[in-house]
């Protein structure tokens, strides 16, 4: 076997240089691996925050000038004096599975959503059924600013300056029959605009329901805006329900159908896990979720936790709706 020519000593890289080069290479490879790991981490964790610019609502009645015609206890409940949660957090921390199951991912996924040509059908046990477009909805009453606490079943909470009017005003229009005992609500079903509906996390469309007396309560709000502007898609545009003494999931978003019915209607989360989410879903610190306590809550934007209040602090206004009911059974 012929010997390969040996390189002369002076062209061989000296060992100090050779090994320092190798050390450099190793450091470089470590740095490259760190860059890859960092990118993977950020891919899973970066919170994208597109700004929210919605048109101002016309004719908004500010919270400070809520009509004196309301009883004082009610007027007080219409505007909590607690500090409102920032618009940024209200519009970038959403449970809206129609777009994403990631609360911070909903805002990123609303790009294809449009409310053009929106119609809301009101039917069932009513004297005057009808189909309302958004103009019809706006004409029913001027939007009032209602500053409500919002308590999510997941133990976080916000204070939100909604805009809208009592849902009872819409019911007055359609005149429920005496046989109507419940109101059933349905969200839009449109997987093209709502990408979350392409997966079967929940049975689409989302449905919710209230007892008629709950729906008639003046605190129950048909909301069309927040922070004095039209509702952003991620918060339930164009029209949603807000029931401040119940867990947030009762506040059905992007409503297309309202039916007055005789029997308790199915509701999405209750159907998904009946032991975890009841039909009533009143905020109740004494009735734990099977997997976590409901005694305290994380107010978004605050440090530390605060105790959760019975009926989310609206007991004075709504407790009478449930007198004599076992709230541990009807959770």
């Amino acid at each position, binding site marked *: 076997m012929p010997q390969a020519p040996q390189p002369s000593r002076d062209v061989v890289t000296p*060992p100090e240089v050779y*090994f320092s080069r190798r*050390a450099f290479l*190793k450091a470089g490879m*470590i740095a490259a*691996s760190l860059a890859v790991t960092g990118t993977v981490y950020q891919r899973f*964790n970066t919170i994208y925050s597109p700004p929210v610019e919605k048109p101002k609502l016309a004719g908004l009645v500010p919270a400070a000038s809520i009509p004196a015609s309301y009883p004082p206890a009610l007027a007080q409940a219409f505007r909590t004096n607690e500090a409102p949660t920032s618009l940024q957090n209200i519009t970038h921390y959403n449970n809206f599975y129609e777009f994403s*199951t990631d609360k911070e991912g909903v805002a990123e996924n609303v790009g294809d959503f449009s409310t053009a040509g929106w119609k809301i059908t009101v039917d069932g046990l009513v004297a005057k059924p009808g189909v309302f477009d958004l103009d019809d909805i706006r004409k029913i009453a001027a939007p009032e600013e209602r500053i409500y606490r919002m308590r999510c079943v997941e133990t976080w909470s916000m204070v939100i300056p909604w805009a809208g009017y009592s849902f009872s005003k819409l019911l007055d229009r359609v005149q429920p029959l005496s046989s109507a005992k419940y109101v059933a609500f349905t969200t839009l079903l449109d997987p093209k605009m709502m990408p979350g509906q392409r997966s079967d996390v929940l049975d689409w469309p989302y449905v919710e329901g209230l007892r008629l007396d709950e729906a008639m309560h003046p605190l129950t709000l048909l909301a069309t805006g927040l922070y004095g502007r039209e509702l952003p898609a991620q918060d339930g545009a164009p029209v949603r329900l807000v029931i401040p003494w119940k867990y947030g999931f009762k506040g059905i978003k992007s409503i297309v159908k309202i039916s007055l019915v005789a029997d308790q209607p199915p509701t999405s989360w209750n159907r*998904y896990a009946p032991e975890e989410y009841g039909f009533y879903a009143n905020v109740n610190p004494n009735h734990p979720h099977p*997997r976590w306590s409901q005694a305290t809550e994380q107010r978004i934007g605050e440090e530390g936790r605060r105790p959760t209040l019975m009926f989310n602090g609206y007991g004075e206004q709504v407790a009478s709706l449930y007198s004599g009911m076992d709230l541990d059974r009807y959770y």
Partner: protein
Amino acid sequence: MSSAVSTADLRPASPGYKWIGGSMPVARFGLILNLLVPLVFLVGDACNGKLGADPVKEAIHTTGLVAVTYLLLSLGVTPLRMVSGWGWLVQFRRSFGVFAFYYACAHLAIYFWWDRERSLGSTAYEITHRYYLMIGFLSLVVMLPLWATSFNAAIKKLGGRRWQRLHRWAYVAAALACWHFYLQTKADKRRPDIYIAVLAILLLGRLVVRFLPSSRAAAKAKSPNRAGKS
């Protein structure tokens, strides 16, 4: 080849120059730096207020996800070694496992410090009354003796076989962690489903190798038994 100079003689005496082997090979050092990346980002994001609307939840979820990910990676090392025949991969297994334990500890510590607001009573109450928390806690308990025996002297003291038998509990810890992950997820179970599937594949693979003599022999032939060698 008497004229050839052995590179080992010229190599500077620092163990840090070796990719593998030695007390702190470069590859493992690099891996440990990588394992710290989530912590660096988490602390950085926390200091800059970039953890989103609910920073405590975010920190709890991140540390938990990292812990269960590292657990699965630690269990993936041996199968990868068997398939590839790269015996040196074994040194990474311990780093993954040990750091899974550290992140799991951070996960519990953040829950105790910020979610339960430093109340031992409320932490203990929640863990004992919410079974998904209990399952997560058990995973940490199972990891504790594994972490405590994760250094060379412990292997010598226990003996290779006993040490190996003890460290098979890593599968139990990972199963509990995946179960905890699955239970805490509200409805979109895609991520925990993937973790459970990966764990099932790893476990099945190990069982196949163990109970199918032919594949076992093949695996042995590919990767020399390093038990006792640490």
